[in-house]
Protein backbone atom coordinates (compact mmCIF):
# COMPACT_ATOMS: atom_id res chain seq x y z
CA UNK A 1 0.00 0.00 0.00
CA UNK A 2 1.50 3.33 -1.00
CA UNK A 3 1.28 6.72 0.57
CA UNK A 4 2.11 9.91 -1.28
CA UNK A 5 2.92 13.26 0.26
CA UNK A 6 3.01 16.64 -1.38
CA UNK A 7 6.76 17.24 -1.89
CA UNK A 8 8.23 19.46 0.84
CA UNK A 9 9.23 22.18 -1.60
CA UNK A 10 5.82 22.35 -3.24
CA UNK A 11 2.75 24.48 -2.49
CA UNK A 12 -0.76 24.47 -3.97
CA UNK A 13 -3.20 27.33 -4.37
CA UNK A 14 -6.74 26.78 -5.58
CA UNK A 15 -8.04 29.34 -8.02
CA UNK A 16 -11.66 29.37 -9.25
CA UNK A 17 -11.20 26.75 -11.97
CA UNK A 18 -7.59 25.70 -11.62
CA UNK A 19 -5.09 24.59 -9.02
CA UNK A 20 -1.66 26.14 -9.35
CA UNK A 21 1.24 24.10 -8.02
CA UNK A 22 4.55 25.85 -7.36
CA UNK A 23 7.73 23.83 -7.15
CA UNK A 24 10.31 25.96 -5.33
CA UNK A 25 13.17 23.71 -6.33
CA UNK A 26 12.58 23.95 -10.08
CA UNK A 27 10.98 27.44 -9.77
CA UNK A 28 8.15 26.25 -12.03
CA UNK A 29 4.42 26.75 -11.84
CA UNK A 30 2.12 23.91 -12.92
CA UNK A 31 -1.58 24.20 -13.67
CA UNK A 32 -4.01 21.41 -12.80
CA UNK A 33 -7.65 21.24 -13.81
CA UNK A 34 -10.18 21.03 -10.94
CA UNK A 35 -10.34 17.20 -11.06
CA UNK A 36 -6.56 16.75 -10.97
CA UNK A 37 -6.24 19.47 -8.33
CA UNK A 38 -8.74 17.70 -6.08
CA UNK A 39 -6.98 14.36 -6.66
CA UNK A 40 -3.59 15.81 -5.68
CA UNK A 41 -5.01 17.45 -2.58
CA UNK A 42 -6.73 14.24 -1.40
CA UNK A 43 -3.69 12.13 -2.28
CA UNK A 44 -1.48 14.32 -0.12
CA UNK A 45 -3.90 14.24 2.77
CA UNK A 46 -5.01 10.58 3.00
CA UNK A 47 -2.95 7.88 4.71
CA UNK A 48 -2.76 5.63 1.63
CA UNK A 49 -3.48 5.86 -2.07
CA UNK A 50 -6.25 3.29 -1.57
CA UNK A 51 -7.91 5.56 0.99
CA UNK A 52 -7.54 8.48 -1.41
CA UNK A 53 -9.17 6.40 -4.13
CA UNK A 54 -12.18 5.70 -1.89
CA UNK A 55 -12.59 9.39 -1.04
CA UNK A 56 -12.29 10.45 -4.68
CA UNK A 57 -14.77 7.80 -5.86
CA UNK A 58 -17.27 9.21 -3.36
CA UNK A 59 -16.47 12.81 -4.34
CA UNK A 60 -16.89 12.20 -8.04
CA UNK A 61 -19.76 9.69 -7.58
CA UNK A 62 -18.02 7.17 -9.80
CA UNK A 63 -16.94 3.54 -9.21
CA UNK A 64 -13.42 3.05 -7.85
CA UNK A 65 -12.55 1.15 -11.04
CA UNK A 66 -13.25 4.29 -13.08
CA UNK A 67 -11.12 6.52 -10.88
CA UNK A 68 -8.16 4.19 -10.38
CA UNK A 69 -6.54 4.50 -13.85
CA UNK A 70 -6.95 8.29 -13.77
CA UNK A 71 -5.37 8.53 -10.32
CA UNK A 72 -2.53 6.17 -11.31
CA UNK A 73 -1.75 8.26 -14.37
CA UNK A 74 -1.79 11.45 -12.32
CA UNK A 75 0.50 9.91 -9.66
CA UNK A 76 3.03 9.00 -12.34
CA UNK A 77 2.88 12.48 -13.79
CA UNK A 78 3.24 14.18 -10.40
CA UNK A 79 6.14 11.90 -9.39
CA UNK A 80 7.90 12.65 -12.66
CA UNK A 81 7.62 16.38 -11.97
CA UNK A 82 8.74 15.96 -8.32
CA UNK A 83 5.47 17.42 -7.08
CA UNK A 84 4.71 14.45 -4.80
CA UNK A 85 6.96 11.95 -3.04
CA UNK A 86 6.36 8.28 -2.22
CA UNK A 87 6.26 7.79 1.55
CA UNK A 88 6.09 4.78 3.89
CA UNK A 89 2.42 3.92 4.49
Amino acid at each position, binding site marked *: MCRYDIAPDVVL*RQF*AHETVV*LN*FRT*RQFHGLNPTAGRMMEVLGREATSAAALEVLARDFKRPVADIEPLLSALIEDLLERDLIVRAQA
Partner: protein
Amino acid sequence: MKETTGHAFGLRLTSEFPLAGLDCSVSETLPSCRLTLVDEHELGRLWPSTGGRRIEEERDARGAVDRFVDEHPDVGYRLFARYFGEVIIERDGAAIHCCPPPVASWRWQRLLVGRAIPMAAMLRGYEVLHASAVAVRGKVIAISGPSGCGKTSLALQLHLSGAASFVSDDVLVLERGGAAMLVHPGIGVTNVRLAEEARMGPHTEELGAVLGRSGRQKSHYAIRRETGPLPLGLMYFLSAGAAAGIEPVDPIPPDLLLGSSFVHAMRSPASLLRLLDTCHALSRSTPVFWLHRGGTAPDELAQIILEHLSTLAVERSR
Protein backbone atom coordinates in the same frame (compact mmCIF):
# COMPACT_ATOMS: atom_id res chain seq x y z
CA MET B 1 26.71 66.48 -2.24
CA LYS B 2 23.10 67.62 -1.92
CA GLU B 3 20.69 64.74 -1.57
CA THR B 4 17.16 64.51 -2.92
CA THR B 5 14.54 62.57 -1.01
CA GLY B 6 11.11 61.53 -2.16
CA HIS B 7 8.94 58.51 -2.78
CA ALA B 8 7.92 56.35 -5.73
CA PHE B 9 7.05 52.67 -6.29
CA GLY B 10 6.37 52.32 -2.56
CA LEU B 11 9.96 53.22 -1.65
CA ARG B 12 11.46 56.15 0.23
CA LEU B 13 14.16 57.14 -2.23
CA THR B 14 17.24 59.07 -1.17
CA SER B 15 19.24 60.10 -4.19
CA GLU B 16 22.68 61.62 -4.69
CA PHE B 17 21.40 63.20 -7.93
CA PRO B 18 18.19 64.90 -9.09
CA LEU B 19 15.73 62.27 -10.26
CA ALA B 20 13.24 63.40 -12.92
CA GLY B 21 9.63 63.05 -11.82
CA LEU B 22 10.39 62.24 -8.18
CA ASP B 23 7.68 63.33 -5.73
CA CYS B 24 9.76 64.97 -3.00
CA SER B 25 7.22 64.51 -0.22
CA VAL B 26 8.48 61.88 2.20
CA SER B 27 6.78 59.00 3.95
CA GLU B 28 8.95 57.67 6.78
CA THR B 29 7.02 54.41 6.92
CA LEU B 30 8.05 53.24 3.46
CA PRO B 31 11.03 50.92 2.96
CA SER B 32 14.09 52.90 1.94
CA CYS B 33 16.26 52.70 -1.14
CA ARG B 34 19.41 54.75 -1.65
CA LEU B 35 20.47 55.84 -5.14
CA THR B 36 24.15 56.56 -5.72
CA LEU B 37 26.28 57.54 -8.70
CA VAL B 38 29.43 55.51 -9.33
CA ASP B 39 32.02 55.41 -12.07
CA GLU B 40 33.15 52.27 -13.93
CA HIS B 41 36.04 51.73 -11.52
CA GLU B 42 33.74 51.83 -8.49
CA LEU B 43 31.20 49.62 -10.24
CA GLY B 44 33.93 47.05 -10.86
CA ARG B 45 34.96 47.25 -7.20
CA LEU B 46 31.37 46.63 -6.04
CA TRP B 47 30.87 43.61 -8.33
CA PRO B 48 33.23 40.66 -7.67
CA SER B 49 34.84 39.16 -10.76
CA THR B 50 33.82 35.66 -9.71
CA GLY B 51 30.72 34.04 -8.23
CA GLY B 52 28.14 35.75 -10.42
CA ARG B 53 25.99 34.28 -13.16
CA ARG B 54 23.96 35.64 -16.05
CA ILE B 55 20.22 35.16 -15.61
CA GLU B 56 18.90 37.20 -18.55
CA GLU B 57 20.42 38.35 -21.80
CA GLU B 58 19.16 39.90 -25.01
CA ARG B 59 21.26 40.35 -28.15
CA ASP B 60 20.62 42.34 -31.30
CA ALA B 61 20.53 40.88 -34.83
CA ARG B 62 24.35 41.13 -35.09
CA GLY B 63 24.85 39.23 -31.86
CA ALA B 64 25.93 42.20 -29.71
CA VAL B 65 24.59 42.26 -26.15
CA ASP B 66 21.70 44.71 -25.87
CA ARG B 67 20.95 44.09 -22.22
CA PHE B 68 21.67 41.62 -19.45
CA VAL B 69 20.95 40.87 -15.82
CA ASP B 70 23.64 39.18 -13.71
CA GLU B 71 23.12 37.80 -10.23
CA HIS B 72 25.68 37.48 -7.46
CA PRO B 73 24.65 35.65 -4.27
CA ASP B 74 26.46 38.13 -1.99
CA VAL B 75 25.93 41.40 -3.83
CA GLY B 76 22.66 41.31 -5.73
CA TYR B 77 21.91 42.13 -9.33
CA ARG B 78 23.77 43.94 -12.08
CA LEU B 79 21.74 45.35 -14.99
CA PHE B 80 23.20 46.53 -18.25
CA ALA B 81 21.31 48.18 -21.10
CA ARG B 82 23.10 49.55 -24.13
CA TYR B 83 22.84 53.38 -24.28
CA PHE B 84 21.50 53.46 -20.70
CA GLY B 85 24.51 52.25 -18.74
CA GLU B 86 24.74 49.85 -15.82
CA VAL B 87 23.31 49.64 -12.33
CA ILE B 88 23.89 47.36 -9.37
CA ILE B 89 20.87 46.64 -7.19
CA GLU B 90 21.83 45.42 -3.74
CA ARG B 91 20.45 42.04 -2.82
CA ASP B 92 17.82 43.43 -0.41
CA GLY B 93 16.89 46.34 -2.69
CA ALA B 94 18.16 48.90 -0.14
CA ALA B 95 20.51 50.61 -2.60
CA ILE B 96 21.00 51.06 -6.33
CA HIS B 97 24.39 52.13 -7.66
CA CYS B 98 24.16 53.79 -11.08
CA CYS B 99 26.96 54.02 -13.62
CA PRO B 100 25.47 56.10 -16.46
CA PRO B 101 26.93 56.74 -19.90
CA PRO B 102 27.63 60.37 -20.89
CA VAL B 103 24.07 61.20 -21.98
CA ALA B 104 21.33 63.47 -20.63
CA SER B 105 20.16 62.40 -17.17
CA TRP B 106 16.51 61.86 -18.22
CA ARG B 107 17.80 59.39 -20.83
CA TRP B 108 19.92 57.12 -18.65
CA GLN B 109 17.41 57.40 -15.83
CA ARG B 110 14.97 55.45 -18.01
CA LEU B 111 16.86 52.28 -17.03
CA LEU B 112 16.69 53.31 -13.39
CA VAL B 113 12.99 54.22 -13.40
CA GLY B 114 11.79 51.65 -15.92
CA ARG B 115 13.65 48.63 -14.54
CA ALA B 116 15.94 49.09 -11.56
CA ILE B 117 13.68 50.83 -9.03
CA PRO B 118 10.71 48.51 -9.75
CA MET B 119 13.08 45.55 -9.25
CA ALA B 120 14.27 47.07 -5.97
CA ALA B 121 10.60 47.45 -4.96
CA MET B 122 10.16 43.71 -5.51
CA LEU B 123 13.28 42.96 -3.45
CA ARG B 124 11.90 45.24 -0.69
CA GLY B 125 8.75 43.09 -0.44
CA TYR B 126 6.23 44.40 -2.96
CA GLU B 127 4.77 42.54 -5.89
CA VAL B 128 5.25 44.27 -9.23
CA LEU B 129 3.07 43.69 -12.27
CA HIS B 130 3.42 44.95 -15.82
CA ALA B 131 0.58 47.47 -16.06
CA SER B 132 -0.13 51.16 -16.37
CA ALA B 133 -2.58 52.72 -13.96
CA VAL B 134 -4.84 55.69 -13.32
CA ALA B 135 -7.14 56.52 -10.42
CA VAL B 136 -10.86 57.17 -10.77
CA ARG B 137 -12.89 58.24 -7.72
CA GLY B 138 -10.14 57.13 -5.34
CA LYS B 139 -9.60 53.67 -6.81
CA VAL B 140 -6.91 52.45 -9.13
CA ILE B 141 -7.79 51.18 -12.57
CA ALA B 142 -4.93 49.03 -13.87
CA ILE B 143 -4.39 48.34 -17.57
CA SER B 144 -2.28 45.30 -18.35
CA GLY B 145 -1.31 43.55 -21.56
CA PRO B 146 1.68 42.71 -23.73
CA SER B 147 4.42 45.26 -24.43
CA GLY B 148 3.44 47.76 -27.11
CA CYS B 149 -0.29 47.04 -26.89
CA GLY B 150 -1.18 50.58 -25.83
CA LYS B 151 -1.35 50.51 -22.02
CA THR B 152 0.33 53.88 -21.60
CA SER B 153 -1.59 55.56 -24.43
CA LEU B 154 -4.84 54.48 -22.86
CA ALA B 155 -3.80 55.58 -19.36
CA LEU B 156 -2.79 58.99 -20.72
CA GLN B 157 -6.07 59.39 -22.60
CA LEU B 158 -7.93 58.62 -19.38
CA HIS B 159 -5.75 61.19 -17.61
CA LEU B 160 -6.40 63.79 -20.33
CA SER B 161 -10.15 63.18 -20.13
CA GLY B 162 -10.08 64.82 -16.71
CA ALA B 163 -11.96 61.89 -15.17
CA ALA B 164 -8.82 60.06 -14.06
CA SER B 165 -5.49 60.92 -12.49
CA PHE B 166 -2.21 59.34 -13.47
CA VAL B 167 -0.75 56.69 -11.14
CA SER B 168 1.97 54.80 -12.97
CA ASP B 169 3.43 54.06 -16.37
CA ASP B 170 3.97 50.38 -17.14
CA VAL B 171 4.74 49.35 -13.54
CA LEU B 172 2.12 48.40 -10.96
CA VAL B 173 3.56 48.13 -7.44
CA LEU B 174 1.18 46.16 -5.24
CA GLU B 175 1.01 45.76 -1.50
CA ARG B 176 -1.42 43.42 0.19
CA GLY B 177 -3.29 45.41 2.81
CA GLY B 178 -5.68 42.95 4.45
CA ALA B 179 -8.42 42.01 1.99
CA ALA B 180 -7.63 44.98 -0.24
CA MET B 181 -4.75 45.38 -2.61
CA LEU B 182 -2.93 48.71 -2.45
CA VAL B 183 -1.22 50.30 -5.43
CA HIS B 184 1.80 52.56 -4.86
CA PRO B 185 2.24 55.31 -7.46
CA GLY B 186 5.24 55.20 -9.75
CA ILE B 187 7.37 58.14 -10.74
CA GLY B 188 6.02 61.25 -12.46
CA VAL B 189 7.42 60.45 -15.88
CA THR B 190 5.62 58.98 -18.87
CA ASN B 191 6.85 57.77 -22.23
CA VAL B 192 4.64 58.59 -25.23
CA ARG B 193 5.00 57.01 -28.66
CA LEU B 194 5.48 59.64 -31.35
CA ALA B 195 2.39 58.47 -33.25
CA GLU B 196 0.33 58.82 -30.11
CA GLU B 197 1.89 62.19 -29.38
CA ALA B 198 0.90 63.39 -32.87
CA ARG B 199 -2.66 62.15 -32.29
CA MET B 200 -2.85 64.05 -28.99
CA GLY B 201 -1.90 67.28 -30.73
CA PRO B 202 -2.08 70.32 -28.45
CA HIS B 203 -3.35 68.18 -25.56
CA THR B 204 0.22 67.07 -24.91
CA GLU B 205 0.70 70.41 -23.14
CA GLU B 206 -1.68 69.11 -20.48
CA LEU B 207 0.64 66.17 -19.76
CA GLY B 208 3.50 68.30 -18.45
CA ALA B 209 6.97 69.41 -19.47
CA VAL B 210 8.85 67.52 -22.17
CA LEU B 211 12.00 65.94 -20.73
CA GLY B 212 13.34 64.82 -24.09
CA ARG B 213 12.91 62.57 -27.08
CA SER B 214 14.60 59.24 -27.68
CA GLY B 215 15.34 58.93 -31.37
CA ARG B 216 12.27 58.25 -33.47
CA GLN B 217 10.52 56.26 -30.78
CA LYS B 218 9.12 58.16 -27.84
CA SER B 219 8.81 61.50 -26.12
CA HIS B 220 9.26 61.64 -22.37
CA TYR B 221 7.13 63.91 -20.24
CA ALA B 222 7.16 64.88 -16.59
CA ILE B 223 3.59 64.24 -15.45
CA ARG B 224 1.74 64.96 -12.23
CA ARG B 225 0.67 61.75 -10.56
CA GLU B 226 -1.18 60.55 -7.47
CA THR B 227 0.91 61.04 -4.35
CA GLY B 228 -0.05 58.12 -2.10
CA PRO B 229 -1.15 54.50 -2.20
CA LEU B 230 -4.72 53.77 -3.27
CA PRO B 231 -6.81 50.58 -3.33
CA LEU B 232 -6.91 48.63 -6.56
CA GLY B 233 -10.41 48.85 -8.03
CA LEU B 234 -10.20 46.68 -11.11
CA MET B 235 -7.97 45.48 -13.89
CA TYR B 236 -8.35 45.53 -17.64
CA PHE B 237 -6.34 43.21 -19.87
CA LEU B 238 -5.91 44.63 -23.35
CA SER B 239 -6.48 42.23 -26.23
CA ALA B 240 -6.69 42.75 -29.99
CA GLY B 241 -10.30 41.58 -30.47
CA ALA B 242 -12.30 41.97 -33.67
CA ALA B 243 -14.43 44.79 -32.24
CA ALA B 244 -13.94 47.17 -29.35
CA GLY B 245 -15.67 46.08 -26.17
CA ILE B 246 -15.37 44.92 -22.58
CA GLU B 247 -16.22 41.54 -21.10
CA PRO B 248 -15.55 39.99 -17.70
CA VAL B 249 -12.68 37.52 -17.33
CA ASP B 250 -14.51 34.81 -15.41
CA PRO B 251 -13.04 32.56 -14.23
CA ILE B 252 -9.69 34.34 -14.12
CA PRO B 253 -6.97 32.05 -15.55
CA PRO B 254 -4.08 32.08 -13.04
CA ASP B 255 -1.53 32.30 -15.85
CA LEU B 256 -3.07 35.59 -17.00
CA LEU B 257 -2.10 37.12 -13.64
CA LEU B 258 1.15 35.19 -13.12
CA GLY B 259 2.23 36.08 -16.64
CA SER B 260 1.78 39.80 -16.00
CA SER B 261 4.60 39.79 -13.43
CA PHE B 262 7.12 42.55 -14.10
CA VAL B 263 10.07 40.50 -12.90
CA HIS B 264 10.61 36.91 -13.97
CA ALA B 265 14.25 36.06 -13.47
CA MET B 266 15.15 37.55 -10.08
CA ARG B 267 12.94 35.26 -8.06
CA SER B 268 13.77 33.60 -4.76
CA PRO B 269 11.40 30.85 -3.52
CA ALA B 270 9.86 33.36 -1.08
CA SER B 271 9.33 35.83 -3.90
CA LEU B 272 7.72 33.16 -6.10
CA LEU B 273 5.35 32.28 -3.27
CA ARG B 274 4.51 35.97 -2.80
CA LEU B 275 3.76 36.27 -6.52
CA LEU B 276 1.48 33.23 -6.36
CA ASP B 277 -0.28 34.49 -3.23
CA THR B 278 -0.70 37.98 -4.68
CA CYS B 279 -2.24 36.57 -7.86
CA HIS B 280 -4.43 34.27 -5.78
CA ALA B 281 -5.63 37.24 -3.69
CA LEU B 282 -6.12 39.35 -6.84
CA SER B 283 -8.27 36.65 -8.41
CA ARG B 284 -10.56 36.76 -5.37
CA SER B 285 -10.61 40.48 -4.64
CA THR B 286 -10.36 42.29 -7.95
CA PRO B 287 -12.76 42.31 -10.90
CA VAL B 288 -10.86 41.62 -14.11
CA PHE B 289 -12.07 42.44 -17.62
CA TRP B 290 -10.92 41.89 -21.17
CA LEU B 291 -10.68 45.15 -23.03
CA HIS B 292 -10.82 44.38 -26.75
CA ARG B 293 -9.29 47.12 -28.84
CA GLY B 294 -10.67 46.14 -32.23
CA GLY B 295 -8.58 48.80 -33.96
CA THR B 296 -10.14 51.58 -31.90
CA ALA B 297 -8.08 54.70 -31.11
CA PRO B 298 -6.95 55.15 -27.48
CA ASP B 299 -9.14 58.24 -26.90
CA GLU B 300 -12.25 56.30 -27.95
CA LEU B 301 -11.19 53.32 -25.85
CA ALA B 302 -10.81 55.65 -22.88
CA GLN B 303 -14.44 56.74 -23.35
CA ILE B 304 -15.52 53.09 -23.50
CA ILE B 305 -13.73 52.50 -20.18
CA LEU B 306 -15.29 55.56 -18.54
CA GLU B 307 -18.76 54.42 -19.65
CA HIS B 308 -18.02 50.94 -18.31
CA LEU B 309 -16.90 52.36 -14.96
CA SER B 310 -20.06 54.47 -14.76
CA THR B 311 -22.19 51.40 -15.46
CA LEU B 312 -20.38 49.44 -12.74
CA ALA B 313 -20.82 52.34 -10.28
CA VAL B 314 -24.57 52.44 -11.00
CA GLU B 315 -24.86 48.66 -10.58
CA ARG B 316 -23.02 48.84 -7.23
CA SER B 317 -25.25 51.63 -5.97
CA ARG B 318 -28.43 49.60 -6.57
